[in-house]
């Protein structure tokens, strides 16, 4: 006679998807609640449960939540953009930074011009847009990154709530 163990009524999303018993020390359970089934589904689709388990086992327990959230973000990005994944977001942000650097340099040059001419005669100030700018330093390995994509520089929302990562624990 088979000994049927009672099913856990609190299986995590991972064990539900994998159709297995959720043990008390399940590595996924703290981070993949049963009320968020799509989160694990996406991570599993891109990385695979086994690989996620290995990654989580590698990191200290106190950093596993951040790890899961970053994996979920990457999985979401990859599913939305199967060719570029997160790299699309990086390229857009780099391009935006270049544009802002350019605009900021021009603005500072204008302000410097104001400062230089404010003590001289009060005749009309001619602002020359063709100011010389320091060349933007290239990042090794990323020379073509910012300019290889046709997306608009403002189309970052497709990569999910980036604001959640701007102030979160992701940057120490």
């Amino acid at each position, binding site marked *: 006679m088979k000994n049927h163990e009672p099913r856990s009524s609190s299986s995590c999303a991972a064990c539900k998807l994998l159709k297995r018993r959720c043990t008390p020390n399940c590595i996924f359970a703290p981070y993949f609640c049963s009320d968020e089934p799509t989160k694990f589904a996406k991570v599993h689709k*891109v990385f695979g449960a086994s690989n996620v388990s290995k990654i989580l086992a590698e990191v200290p327990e106190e950093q596993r939540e*951040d790890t899961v959230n970053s994996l979920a973000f990457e999985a979401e990005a990859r599913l939305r953009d199967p060719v570029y994944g997160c790299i699309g977001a990086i390229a857009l*942000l780099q391009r935006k*930074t270049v544009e802002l650097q350019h605009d900021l340099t021009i*603005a500072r040059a204008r302000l410097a011009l*104001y400062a230089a001419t404010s003590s001289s005669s009060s005749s009309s100030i001619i602002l020359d847009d063709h100011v010389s700018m320091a060349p933007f330093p290239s990042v*090794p390995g990323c020379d073509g990154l910012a300019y290889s994509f046709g997306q608009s520089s403002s189309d970052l929302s497709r990569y999910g709530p980036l604001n959640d990562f701007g102030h979160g624990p992701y*940057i120490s």
Partner: protein
Amino acid sequence: MISGRCAACKYLRRRCPSDCIFSLYFPPNDPQRFACVHRIYGASNVGKMLQQLPPPLRAQAADTLYFEARCRIEDPVYGCVGIISQLHEQVQSAESELAKAQAEIAFLNCNPQEAPAPIEANSNFNNLLPEQYLCPPSAQNSWF
């Protein structure tokens, strides 16, 4: 034409068929490339992802998968999301500075006799990304 097994089939210790999905993007002279990708995504997932794409886009996809896998190996907690967070903060900081500078210019345009306050260049864009995140071992080819 690639003779012999591709890096994937060598790693997986199997015969490399003529229509191997990996062979064009994981050449045998760069075994580390497939090893990284396999470690993070698994060969099966990578194969499925490549299969779902039109052939002209597969090379790009393989490159980005490799990049993300390397980021994840180097930073198991944040992977390339750490880079996105840093860039996002830099963009926000730059936008804020630009807004201040433009407001000052607008003010001076209306009040040309006022002297502008000295500008402090307190944001440094010279170090966009930590080199550890982006400099691959063989940086002779552009990523994209």
